[in-house]
């Protein structure tokens, strides 16, 4: 039995400072008994001589210096792991909250995980068809990728995420597929929406939900994704399953991180967020991927709401620096009734190139996507210009681009919430739109592909 300390010296935000400790390990798990006798958990953030700084997952509300006690457990936070965790609901610390028993297993693992050896990684190359043209055609998702949705408050990111979870398939393959859903500080009805949608599409029995909702302790948000990813790694790399992890909302996660940092009085970097937020995010996002010689995979789809729709805000910015692209939702498209309101210009899938092309999707996939980008970017530029000088100031060729822009949004981007387009359909729509241009405009497409697919209208 380890020593019980009654030496809390200071409580500050979510932190407690315990004095006179010895033999305490960095990052180890801590148990705190509050004045009511309830146990809370936390972890050691720093040890300075005989003082340990502890972050309390459930928060410090109600703790007192005189009547709370602390024990150090000598090991990091672990969670039990088993395939029976699918179909279950847990809190942010990985404890069941659906009334069922704790999973029966011998297998416990440190939630912090370990970095995957870059030499052991296998490169993701398998195209996941989501049935959504803006993604499949121009920002292709592949198995093992981490591709976030950058959204804004009030935009339909939840709808899009569930449509993807429902429709995602590898054409011609039926394999163990499961969804792990992590809620961080989102509202009850949002969590309910996901649950219901998983239920309707039959994914629920093959999913595990880790819920930390808006009224749950913020610090627990820092642990929830780590618990979930520990389960994901177990299912993917030991049980050969393909796991899609949806993490929402990373903005709330970052806020919790900032709170801890402020309580520690650390030197902040941008907008008060700690300088190590990049590494911290990476310790979550880099847990996506594949491993040589193992069958399963972890695909991550984090969702974040950009404060003030600002993509340069540290949360989307640092995320974009780590993830393998981003799907960006746009308020203006949303207002104009386009669903999904994906603005393809700032969106990107970095792994697209290896998932598409001859033998994988279609030989024209890459060049068509490039050409759509070029034409739509030109259309957007001309739209701006024509609001200043009027359409009369434009050339015939320019007007063709304006027309293309309109069609592209209405016919290519826009689709139904339940519309599941095959890649063929997506590319066919694309050629249909590109054919309004004379061949000389299609400078992104090599000759042999033009000859095969281009039909001038």
């Amino acid at each position, binding site marked *: 039995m380890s020593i019980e300390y009654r030496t809390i010296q200071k409580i500050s935000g979510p932190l407690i400072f315990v004095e006179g400790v010895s033999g*305490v390990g*960095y990052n180890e798990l801590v148990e705190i008994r509050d004045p009511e006798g309830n146990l809370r958990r936390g972890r050691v953030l720093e*040890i300075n001589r005989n003082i340990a700084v502890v972050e309390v997952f459930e928060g410090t509300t109600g703790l007192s210096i005189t009547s709370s006690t602390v024990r150090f457990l000598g090991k990091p936070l672990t969670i039990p792991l088993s395939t029976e965790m699918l179909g279950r609901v847990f809190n942010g610390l990985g404890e069941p909250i659906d009334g069922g028993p704790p999973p029966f297993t011998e297998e416990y693992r440190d939630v912090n995980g370990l970095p995957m050896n870059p030499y052991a990684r296998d490169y993701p190359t398998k195209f996941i068809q989501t049935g959504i043209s803006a993604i499949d055609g121009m920002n292709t998702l592949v198995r093992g990728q981490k591709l976030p949705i950058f959204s804004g408050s009030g935009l339909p990111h939840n709808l899009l995420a569930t449509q993807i979870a429902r429709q995602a398939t590898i054409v011609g393959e039926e394999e163990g597929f499961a969804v792990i859903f992590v809620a961080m500080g989102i509202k009850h009805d949002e969590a309910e929406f996901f649950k219901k949608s998983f239920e309707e599409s039959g994914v629920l029995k093959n999913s595990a939900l880790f819920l930390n909702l808006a009224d749950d302790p913020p610090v627990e948000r820092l642990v929830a994704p780590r618990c979930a990813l520990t389960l994901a790694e177990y299912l993917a790399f030991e049980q050969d399953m393909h796991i899609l992890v949806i993490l929402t909302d990373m903005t709330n996660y970052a806020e919790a991180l900032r709170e801890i940092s402020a309580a520690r009085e650390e*030197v902040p970097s941008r907008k008060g967020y700690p300088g190590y937020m990049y590494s911290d995010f*990476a310790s979550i996002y880099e847990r996506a*991927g594949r491993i040589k010689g193992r069958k399963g995979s972890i695909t991550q789809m984090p969702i974040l709401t950009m404060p003030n729709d600002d993509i340069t805000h540290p949360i989307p910015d640092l995320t*974009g620096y780590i993830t393998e692209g981003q799907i960006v939702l746009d308020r203006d498209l949303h207002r104009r009734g386009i669903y999904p309101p994906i603005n393809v210009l700032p969106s990107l899938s970095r792994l697209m190139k290896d998932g598409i092309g001859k033998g994988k999707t279609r030989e024209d996939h890459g060049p068509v996507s490039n050409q759509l980008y*070029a034409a739509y970017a030109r259309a957007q530029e001309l739209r701006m210009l024509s609001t200043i000088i009027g359409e009369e100031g434009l050339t015939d060729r320019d007007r063709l681009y304006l027309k293309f822009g309109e069609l592209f949004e209405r016919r290519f981007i826009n689709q139904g919430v339940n519309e599941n387009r095959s890649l063929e359909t997506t590319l066919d729509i694309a050629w249909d739109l590109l054919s309004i241009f004379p061949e000389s405009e299609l400078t*992104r497409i090599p000759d042999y592909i033009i000859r095969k697919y281009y039909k001038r209208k």
Partner: protein
Amino acid sequence: MRIGKIIRISGPVVQAEGALGFEMHELVMVGNEELIGEVVRIEGDIITVQVYEDTVGLKVGEPVKGSGMPLSVELGPGLIQNIFDGIQRPLTIIREVTGDFVRRGVKTTALPRDKKWHFIPLKKVGDYVKPGEIIGKVQETPLVEHRILVPPNREGKIEYIVEEGDYTIEETIAKLSLNNTKYELKMYHKWPVRKPRPYLERLEPTEPLITGQRIIDTLFPVAKGGAVCIPGGFGTGKTVTSHQLAAWSDAHIIIYIGCGERGNEMTEVLINFPEWKDPRTGRPLMERTILIANTSNMPVAAREACIYTGVTIAEYFRDMGYDVAVMADSTSRWAEALREIAGRLEEMPAEEGYPPYLASRLGEFYERAGRVKTLSGLYGSVTLIGAVSPPGGDFSEPVTVHTKRFVRAFWALDTALASMRHYPAINWLISYSEYVDYVEKWWNEKTHGNWKNLRLKALEILKREDELKEIIRLVGIESLPETEKLVLETARLLREGFLQQNAYDPIDTYSSPEKQYKLLYAILEFHNIALKAISKGIPVSKIISLKSISELARARMNIPNEKAYEIDNILKRIENEINSIMEESS
């Protein structure tokens, strides 16, 4: 043995007291598990150590032991084709020991001890060898002859040298004597990573590093021995550009440092480079490549070290008389690691939380680039290409601003261009290279003295396009005179047919200098021919709808390097077609 006792642990930073006699930058063993660390501060009997492995579970009271040596790298055969972590442990061996996930505490040497190399001596008994001299060679890979150097701090008369044959790096291959002291030489030696290796003389750069990337080689060239920075927000192309340079640059040795970036990007190189062929030799690119990987989820302190590990290995190959190119993606992660360590030490921050010595550290790093006369009298160079990841893509942040002071070429990646899928998204209006004058002679010799003028002409047209765009915003395009409309069209051809280069197109990915020149020449010559036609009253709209023009725009993808002469044929067709419109109208 000198031992201190841990008194404080904060992430990767550990402090120990009672630690007398430790040296700055000494390699130390931290805790009962003997994690690897380096002394970064000494105050009285308290040392501060940055630990290169995860510190979870480390306790106050555990020991910190000195090694008596600074943090060093091993230099000898076995470096090429390897992938190392930030402190030069082979990731292949770490995988053998701890499996697919990296665990701490792996003790291994950097170079294989059991492998035999075929050593050919180049000196004989009785010869006097100076520091840095070549005493023998090993064909390490078909692409690289590894020249075995006398360590820079050794010299003497050869008392003994082995015969040609197969030896491991631990075997003595020669014995030197100097004033009655004897030294045994092996095929490898160690060198501290934070200490630049000595050379005889610094030289001006003279030759371009040909990268096969048109906008770089033609508009903003880098010289062998130069220092460049590639700043850009996320998704603008820093990594793809760095990979392209690693693949196609005409350096002898490539050192690619993945510093705090994605694991998959290292995997990508590991998968592609053994397959891709060097355009000059036809051999797999991996045979000249060394990878250093400290990905964003690996210990943050090792991120600070990995840059030095890489550049020290680069200097070692330079000292053999080679041209070495180093890509560091991203130096911002290195700077952030500095910041994180400084923050945990509660040092007084300067701008945006960075420590005040950020600029001097950057300066020291880029100063390790250069073309030199080596200790053995050969010519070698280290070219440093550093990616910078400015928060929010804002180039006024400290790392970009300070880096700019120490590099002489600046390839500014632009988010707007990237979102249009104009790749490489190098903004031609704000990028620059101070190496143009150095490499001009090289290029002019290959292009009938034309290079410099073509380059200036291209930049002028692009600049004019930018000004015209402003004017169009006021008055619309139709009111421009035909000659200005032509400028817009030529600029468009330049952008789409020359500056854009698709890294994933098998033909476009690498452009030989000849193809670059011919493309540029053809586009600018089109401009001249079209000007004549305009003066005869032919409207621009009629000229640009010619079939041969769109052929020229797509030539970068359609015409392989070996058939660069076909670009001349396109130009002829353009000339003929324009001539025939002129005849029709007259």
